[in-house]
């Protein structure tokens, strides 16, 4: 059987997972970056408030204690602050860190109209910027406090650059992470695909999907899939064995047919011998048919392929039905059969199959009990199972053979002289086990054999 396999369908789920993961990752990273940029930006915007606060603080100090109180150049640890006091004639009385601010060449810058205003000085030498707030002191001098805003812009610019520089790796990491996660998450699915494909291509059911035992949904799926494979494998193997057995078992009777036919065709034979041979052939075909039917029943019961029409069946009623058949055989053989069956034991079973099982078992017991002997049939209830016991006063089964009596076509030394196919007990065992029961046998050459069938009772009983 060849099936056309679809190709490449598995990449779609992987791709979608990757895309979703990367998308979400990149989007959240972008949101995070934007928020932090805005927050840094607003922090730096607070520059003016700091300058203003410092200005009013210095002003108070200068008004109260004079310029000296601002101390020597570099009086403050906050060297990044620019502080200057200038006369109305544009003479600088005080300048913090002159070497830092000289480049703005204040002498050439007019000071008119600066009082209470923000002003930005531009350096002639480089691109440095200085943002300054000014206030007029009571003596007419101008107090200026400021800060380089180049630093702020630089920070922001740097931050922006850093963010931009991280965007590309971020996208890359997002894609790679997404692909990796999709790859990992879909690994069980991929394994499943590989194993299924190999089974379809090779028809070998012994492959199993590796289980990562993660106890997640996919792991459950894998476990169930493997269990299903196991079940299929058992069934297929059972079927194959059954087929082999049937083919093997049929060879002997077919061989016999051939021999009889060849014998009949010998030129020296007269008509009577030929007629006999043909009748032998007919009898042999009948045997083969019965044998084939029984072998199929056994195989079906053993592999679980037997269709059981389950209903609530009363054990006692089935036994009585079977006895209407078996009594004839018992009478013909001169064997007394007694039945001690209590009514009211209900089994969940296929009535036809139960009859088949019981009649085989009882027929068997009668067959191996000599004339004048007894066969006792008894039913018992043991917890949730019904027990059917068939006790005979027969020839017994040698210890060496007792394990083999359930094998198909096995016939013990003593049983070879009896009619039969050697399939009855195999059928009994297979059908009882198909009903979730089991069989047991005890035997003694002095007292005979005891066969017991254990069958689960129906729940209402």
């Amino acid at each position, binding site marked *: 059987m060849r099936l056309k396999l679809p190709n490449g369908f598995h990449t779609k789920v992987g791709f979608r997972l990757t895309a979703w993961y990367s998308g979400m990752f990149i989007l959240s990273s972008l949101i995070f970056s934007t928020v932090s940029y805005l927050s840094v930006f607003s922090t730096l915007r607070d520059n003016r408030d700091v300058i203003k606060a410092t200005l009013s603080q210095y002003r108070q100090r200068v008004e109260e204690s004079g310029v000296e109180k601002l101390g020597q150049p570099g009086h403050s640890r906050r060297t990044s602050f620019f502080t200057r006091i200038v006369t109305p004639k544009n003479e600088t009385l005080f300048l913090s860190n002159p070497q830092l601010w000289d480049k703005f060449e204040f002498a050439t810058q007019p000071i008119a109209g600066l009082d209470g205003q923000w002003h930005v000085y531009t350096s002639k030498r480089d691109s440095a910027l200085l943002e300054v707030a000014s206030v007029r002191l009571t003596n007419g001098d101008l107090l200026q406090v400021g800060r380089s805003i180049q630093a702020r812009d630089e920070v922001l610019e740097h931050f922006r650059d850093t963010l931009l520089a991280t965007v590309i790796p971020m996208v890359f990491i997002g894609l790679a992470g997404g692909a990796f996660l999709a790859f990992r998450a879909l690994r069980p699915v991929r394994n499943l695909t590989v194993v299924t494909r190999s089974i379809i291509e090779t028809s070998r059911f012994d492959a199993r999907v590796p289980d990562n035992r993660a106890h997640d949904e996919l792991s459950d799926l894998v476990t169930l899939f493997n269990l299903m494979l196991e079940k299929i494998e058992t069934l297929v193997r059972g079927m194959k064995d059954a087929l082999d057995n049937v083919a093997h078992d049929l060879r002997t009777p077919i061989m016999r047919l051939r021999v009889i036919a060849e014998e009949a065709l010998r030129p020296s034979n007269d008509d009577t011998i030929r007629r006999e041979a043909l009748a032998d*052939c007919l009898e042999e*075909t*009948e045997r083969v048919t019965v044998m084939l039917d*029984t072998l199929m029943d056994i195989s079906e019961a053993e592999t679980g392929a037997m269709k059981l029409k389950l209903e609530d069946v009363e054990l006692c009623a089935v036994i009585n039905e079977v006895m209407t058949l*078996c009594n*004839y055989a018992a009478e013909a053989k001169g064997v007394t059969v007694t039945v001690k069956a209590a009514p009211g034991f209900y089994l969940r079973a296929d*009535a036809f199959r139960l*009859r088949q099982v019981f009649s085989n078992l009882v027929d068997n017991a009668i067959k191996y009990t000599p004339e004048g002997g007894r066969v006792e049939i008894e039913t018992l209830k043991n917890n949730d199972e019904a027990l059917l016991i068939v006790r005979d006063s027969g020839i017994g089964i040698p210890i060496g053979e007792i394990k083999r009596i359930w094998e198909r076509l096995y016939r013990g030394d003593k049983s070879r002289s009896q009619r*039969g196919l050697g399939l*009855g007990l195999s059928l009994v065992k297979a059908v009882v086990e198909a009903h979730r029961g089991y069989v047991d046998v005890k035997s003694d050459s002095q007292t005979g054999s005891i066969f017991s069938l254990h069958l689960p009772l129906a729940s209402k009983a």
Partner: protein
Amino acid sequence: MRVLLVEDDKKLASYIEKGLKEAGFAVDRAEQGDEGLRLVLGSLYDVAIVDVMLPQLDGLTLIDRMRARKVLTPVLILSAKRSVDDRVRGLQTGGDDYLTKPFSFAELLARIQALIRRANHESEPTCLIVGELSIDLLRREVIRSGTKIDLQPREFALLEYLMRNDGRVVSKTMIVEHVWGYGFDPLTNIVDVVISRLRNKVDRDFDQKLIHTFRGVGYALKAS
């Protein structure tokens, strides 16, 4: 009597045809289902023998279609499937009897004749007589040469069945079906046992034996 035989196995079909012609039937043969359907719709047959596995149109569909066209010809289904389910399905589709392969020709013939008798509503006899043996079906009495013979119910049923078949051979399967009903195991040699008991009661004390064994085929009850 006209018989339609729809069977795709040439060897088996020609063998059955030959046997039926010897038994006095006119036989039409079809190897494919659609051909069989055309024939059965085209002319009147007393009985049709239809195999289940057929090319073109399977046997059950054939029966279904012919019943849909109100063709009431009795149908005997031949099948290689022996399960009770298959049998029930065949009879529910509109088949009148079901015969599992391999079968003996004697059994096929007996079943066909039974179908024809049933279809013609032959009146039920109340008394059957073969030679010097007679049974009264109403009083359930068996008399041979003026001597009353006591039979158990199953023995009586078996004798009645043999006598109704009027000298034709009936197989063990047919006997089990009629005397015990379906669903009994063929492994038991029950039929042999009951036949031998019947022989003891009916034939033992007489020179002329009525019950005959046909090895590998079955049993018949006849005077000669």
